[in-house]
């Protein structure tokens, strides 16, 4: 707790009186100052507080393992990553999967496919469902990150993490959602069940694409903070909060198709609030995350 002594002693009280995240940036800077970054601490921080946007990409990269915890090797590793990217890029160009006019997102997809060995024989091959997921996430990430190489790596690592680490958890999410919906708003659940909409909810959009394309990027970042730091349950609470926020509208809709359609295109105006509430809800139901990773 050496870094704690450097922190503002008032920070404890800020939290008590409800000012969350006053000292976050500073404490994050302290965390990032360590030569060997403590990934666990970063995870906890990210779970507990929203990340400042200026450090978000760095933290994500560290958490996703794109760059090692050592500062000294960052440049080297990033160089490697860059070279790798360009190598693959070059290879794809050579085999004419991509050219200059290919959209960035497709480039990412092809690179990813190649890297994972799933490159189709030719371009005419139809896209697999997981490719769709990748594209959606990549599109969202492209908005957040400027550098294409970083972006690629983040997307790729994020998808890999989802597929490896959270694979089992993601399958449980619909059930968990139903369970929490029962606790929070039984009536709404009954309505959804009456409409037989529970099975038709946009689970792909929510849980596989992690709301990419559903929420605007500014809100999405905060959700992804939590996912990247290891908790995919936040997805359930975002979905739950969407339900609670648009409860009246959803109750007004009677068919499963309409509900699904509405949920796939929810209004974008107050998503920040939804996410904030979802985080609160997540805290109340799952407790303050300590070292969940």
């Amino acid at each position, binding site marked *: 707790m050496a870094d704690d002594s450097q922190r503002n002693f008032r920070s404890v009280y800020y939290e008590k009186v409800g000012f969350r995240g006053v000292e976050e940036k500073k404490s994050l800077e302290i965390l990032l100052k360590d030569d*060997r970054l403590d990934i666990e601490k970063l995870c906890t921080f990210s779970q507990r507080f929203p990340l400042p946007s200026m450090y978000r990409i760095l933290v994500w990269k560290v958490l996703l*393992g794109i*760059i*090692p*915890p*050592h500062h*000294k*090797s960052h440049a*080297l*590793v990033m160089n*490697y*990553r860059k*070279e*790798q990217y360009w*190598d*693959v890029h070059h*290879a*794809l160009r*050579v*085999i004419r999967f991509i050219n200059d006019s290919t959209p960035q997102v497709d480039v990412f997809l092809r690179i990813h496919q*190649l*890297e*994972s*060995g*799933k*490159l*189709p*024989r030719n371009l005419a091959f139809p896209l697999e469902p997981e490719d769709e997921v990748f594209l959606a996430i990549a599109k969202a990430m492209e908005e957040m990150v400027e550098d294409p190489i970083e972006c690629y790596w983040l997307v790729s690592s994020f998808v890999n993490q989802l597929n490896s680490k959270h694979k089992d958890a993601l399958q449980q999410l619909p059930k968990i959602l139903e369970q929490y919906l029962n606790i929070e708003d039984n009536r709404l659940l009954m309505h959804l069940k009456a409409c037989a909409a529970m099975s038709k909810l946009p689970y792909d959009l929510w849980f596989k694409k992690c709301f990419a394309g559903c929420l605007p990027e500014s809100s999405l970042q905060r959700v992804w903070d939590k996912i990247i730091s290891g908790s995919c349950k936040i997805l359930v609470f975002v979905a739950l909060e969407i339900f609670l926020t648009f409860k009246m509208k959803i109750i007004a809709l009677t068919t499963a198709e309409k509900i699904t359609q509405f949920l796939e295109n929810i209004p974008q105006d107050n998503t920040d609030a939804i996410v904030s509430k979802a985080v609160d809800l997540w805290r109340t139901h799952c407790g303050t995350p300590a070292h969940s990773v």
Partner: protein
Amino acid sequence: MAQQGNVGELLSMLDSPSLGVLEDITAAFKDNLICDRGPMLVNNLVDYYLETNSQQALHILSTLQEPHDKHLLDKINEYMGKAATRLPILSLLGHVIRRQPSWKHKLSQAPLLLSLLKCLKTDTDVVVLTTGVLVLITMLPMIPQSGKQYLHDFFGIFGRLSAWCLQNPGHVAEIYLVHLHASVYALFHRLYGMYPCNFVSFLRSHYSMKENLETFEEVVKPMMEHVRIHPELVTGSKDHELDPRRWKRLETHDVVIECAKISLDPAEASYEDGYYSASRKPCTNLKHHQTDPSASHYIDTQSSYGTSTPYSTPRLTLSQMPGQLPQILSPQSIQLSTEPQQVTIWSPSAVCGMTTPPTSPGIVPSESSQSSSQPYSKAFGTSAGGKGTPLGTPATSPPPSTSDDFVHVSLPSAAATPPKKEDKSDSGRPLLYRQQNVTNSDKSLDTPGSKSSVTLSDLPEFLGGLSFEDSAEKDREEDAISKEISEITTDAEHMVPRGGFDSPFYRTNESLSGSQKKTQSAVSGAQGHGPTSEPLTSSLDKPGPESARETPKQTFTPIDKPCGGSGESPAGNREGTSGETSILTPSPCKVPAQRRVVFGSGQPPLYEHLFEVALPKTAYLFVGKKTEELLKKVKGTQDEDCTASTSPVEVLDRLIQQGADAHTKELNKLSLPSKSADWTHFGGSPPSDEIHTLRNQLLLLHNQLLYERFKRQQHALRNRRLLRKVIKATALEEHNAAMKDQLKLQEKEIQALKLSLQKEQARYHQFQEEHENIVAQLHSQIRQLQHDREEFYNQSQELQTKLEDCRNMITDLRLELKKANNKVCHTELLLSQVSQKLSNSESVQQQMEFLNRQLLVLGEVNELYLEQLQHKHTDTTKEVEMLHAAYRKDLEKAKLCVQQQSQRLDASQKRIAELESQLSKKDHLFVEQKKYLEDVKIKARGQLQAVESRYKAQKRITQAFELEILDLFGRLEKSSLLKKLEDEKTEAAEAAEERLDCGNEGCADAVAGYSEETIGRNGETKPPSTRGSSSSKGGSNSELSTPEKNQNQRFINRWETSMLLEPSTTVPLTVGSLPSSKSFLGMKSRELFRNKSESQCDEQGGTINSLSDTLKTELCKDPNMETKAPPSPNNSLSPKIPESSVGQLHIMDYNETHHDHS
């Protein structure tokens, strides 16, 4: 105007004889009145009434409702202005007002009132005036509060009319004046009753003037004699009696009764409540008068008038009246003993009575009682009104009464007074009387009516001999009654109006007579009228019900009875009536409830016996007087001032009576056409006038009748209310009685409680005493014990002092003991010291001896040594010196050595410390180094991961390229497929081998991470595959079919394909891993590859060594985990290397290096 026509028709039909039409028309009018709010219909009706005098129109007009009142009043007002229509319109107004319409309060604001007043002030027609005054009198109680503004008008009218009565400025017929006088009298009563203070002040101011003095003397003063002092004169003030609040709580009939209350005139007065006793006084006095022979004269005369009154039909010739009037009034003057005008007692009525033999004497008592009251009041002046005690009245009885009579009178008066006395105070006599009453009532409990009769019958006995005389006369009277009744039975017409008023009185008379008949039949010897009594009883049955109906009135207006003429009270009715009276007359009984019963039943007798007493006298005198009066009649006219003494009402009554009598007589005597001729005989006006006068008189009489009827209605109203009060009062009394019973019960309870309380108190006292005894005992015990205690205390104190003494002694002894002990110890110590010293000295002595001995021995030895010393002195010193020196040197050496050793030790210790510190530093360093190493490891791992991923990416790229290449090959081969079918198999095998090699080598290469090389190799392998069959269809196909399969799987595939291909190609297994030596190309490529790989191994061996350590394991692990295929090629390769031909050393080398690497 159709409506008007319609109205005209209706009006014409109004008096149609048919009843049905009449009802329809009346209904139609009423409907019209309801619908129409205009004045037209009302005006038409009024006109019609004035024209035809129609009763129907009158009826409709008098029942007009609210919205039409204004029109009616306006119309009346209009006609009031005209002299011609004044009279009929006044009578109409009278009719309307007597109906007491709901809008009567508006009268005060109506201009009609003003015009009426004006008319009364200015008009000179007596008939109009009389009618107007009656209307005004009727109206006054209805608008009492508004009378304020017109008060002086009223008074002015009174002044004018009273003066008129006297002066007769219009010189109208006297007979009118009688009417006028009566109405003025009524006005006087009304004004005095309603506004006493104002009125009296008016009288004072008005009659203080000289010119009015006469009027006062003649007219007003006599009137004032008929009124009591109004209580308001004492308590009220001018303003107070005009206060609307005073009038608000009084209804019309209340006002009327108020006015009647202050009247002493029996014709006007009403007796109830507080006035009851006062009103009674005249009765007692009446009796007293009746006993008086002198008084009896006029009583008789009056009785004759009284009998005539009921017969309102003017049987008497009217022309007789003017002449008779003064005579009628004369008897009153007789009463005034002080007055000089002691006129003989004659009255024209007596003549009338004579002329009309059937005049019932039955009325006489009542009439006399009424009339005699006035003479009495006159005779005694104010004593009647002022004196409260009736007992005083006999004493102040007028001089005419004789001593005999006095005794006689006093008794009945005493008997009569009880009701009054019980109100005030109990005197001896009433008690007596009451007892008698009680006994009487006991005798005849069955019928209250009989009770009355019993008392009546007893009373005469009580009165003693007096009654003897009376009874004889009573029988006479009975006779007259029976006659009267027989008349009534014949004349039903008169019966009806009369019966209502009179019946109660008849009952008393009847009961009286009946009882007398029963009880005194033996006593009365002069009873010759046996047969007449029968018709009496028979005729009584008819009016019976009426009497029963009307009896209640009797109680309130007991003096009003005179009006009656016939006795009628059957036994059956009597019960009911007496029962009613008992109910209705509880008011005088403030006496206990027990007496009430007696009283209720006893009350009627009170009157009755008065009359009974009065009756015989009057009856007796009746005959004598008649004769006397006949004589006196001739004497001529009497002064008019006599009228002052009698009530104008009575005068009027008498007039009417006379008129009636005369009329009947005349009617019998004369035929109509010759009437006028005979009228002149009476000295009246000429015949032409006569009819007019008669008509007017009729009219006036009618008015008077209506006024009296109105008064009766008011009385009826009043009666109903009083009845309600009485019922309430009885209920309250019963309640009271119940409460008293309860009170008694409670008192009993209280008594019982008191008894128990006393018992409890006694017990309590007992307990207290016991308690005190115990306490006293205990106290004595305590005292004893205390005493004991004190004794003990003293003893203990003594003992304590002793104890203390002992203690002191003990302490002293102890001290002494201590001192002794100390001494002993000290001595012991001293003793031991002494013994020690002793032993010491002994031992010292022994030592001394021993030392002395030694000294001796040593001295001897010394001497001996001295001797020896002297012998051996030189040799020993040198040796010793030498030895000393040697020892010293040795010691020094040893010291040096020790010093050296210690120095060395220090040095070595220092050295050890240094080394230890170094050791710890090194340990620390080691830890740091470890940490650093770890750090570096992690760092390197991170980098390595990146590199690895890069490497993987490269592999993927390579694969992608391979795929691409293979694809392209595939295409090429397809094109050249047909041409080279023969070479296909071998080349395919070669291609397969090559590919297998490529796989292996690729694996190895991948370890090294040289992508370029693989590319190069691929480039090399291209030609053989293109050239050589390359239709490794199986392989390529499998590859194509599983492009997504991972590398290891592909290994297997390849391995399998190679294995499959082997038998066909018969290539030895050893060669399987390497390109076959047979094929030149394969060899070439192998060599090329080997060289390159070797060189690379050489070049980068150092750097890669470390990497390979980690990578190798991972690489080995991965395949192992996923498939077991990769080890198998390795395993298969490794054993085959030694088996392979010697020419393949390079390959072995390669393999070895590879092994080394791995």
